């Protein structure tokens, strides 16, 4: 539901970072999104198309890499990847886990740009 504001935040952040490369065209924006980040990719892609219109990012592609949830288990000491989001239990020993090590990320990982030669 809030994918439109997320898309707008990405456009702002990338526009700001891309300003360091005058004249460059942004081809691709790559995200790292945790499975617990409350972001729906289809919805974000839809919003992306609308948000980039008329901005320096127009025509760019959004690549969303979803990261699984990884919990640390205090009972067996291991880290493990959750199979789903319906049960926060250690995949090794089945003990309940509350120590989240990965899964809430909502980051711009990198951008791919075409740089203009001899740009000042």
């Amino acid at each position, binding site marked *: 539901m809030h994918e439109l504001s997320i898309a707008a935040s990405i456009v702002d*952040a990338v526009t700001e970072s891309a300003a360091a490369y005058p004249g460059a065209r942004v081809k691709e924006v790559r995200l790292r999104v945790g499975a617990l980040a409350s972001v729906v990719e289809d919805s974000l892609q839809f919003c992306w198309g609308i948000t980039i219109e008329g901005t320096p990012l127009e025509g760019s592609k959004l690549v969303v890499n979803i990261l699984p949830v990884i919990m640390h288990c205090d009972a067996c000491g291991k880290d493990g990847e959750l199979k789903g989001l319906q049960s926060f239990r250690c995949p090794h020993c089945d003990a309940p886990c509350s120590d989240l090590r990965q899964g809430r990320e*909502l*980051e711009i990982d990198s*951008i791919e740009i075409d740089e203009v030669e001899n740009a000042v």
Partner: protein
Amino acid sequence: MTTRIVELRRGILKKNDELAAGLRGRYGAAGVLVLNLVSSPGTGKTAFLEFTLRELRAKGAKVAALVGDLETDNDARRLAASGAPVRQINTHGICHLDAEMIDKHLAGWEGVALADLEYLFIENVGNLVCPSSYDLGEKIRVALLSVTEGEDKPLKYPTLFNSADAAVITKIDIAEPCGFDRELALKNINEIRPGIRIFETSAKTGVGMEEWLGYLAEARADVGVR
């Protein structure tokens, strides 16, 4: 023309996170316990908060509340009947509160200074999805669930329940006619957020509210006295 990959490694909600960190610092310095109340529309956040504000004020505590809704100041008017300072935040279509809205409404709040408060409650917009992404600098995020909503709500909305520090079951006085399966609800909450403190309450009869108020007093003592 050369193609280049530029590593950014930057949080998409960095601006919100930075503002929230600033707020958290200010809450801590002022010695105020801040709670963010999140639930579906209709769970009974406002009734629960009315009761909480009234009881805390009766105990002489200095409390205030910010309340978020898309439109209307109905909730602020209801809560203000407790005598506590209350300010409405209208998001005009936005489905969650963010740190900037909190910052702005704290700044222009006539007669209310953080340093004069012990408790500040933030009643979020009724929504179980989006508020989970937006840190408001709160110390405690409270997820509320009413007995009319179905015991599997935590399983349906794991991102929110997993990010909560405390869970409150509301309208427990009508659990029986609703066919509410208490054991199942408690089990589901624990599957998503193992070990979380759970309060079973009714703002109508007052059941479970003493325990909740005790929890608040303990948490407030943890914030430290300035």
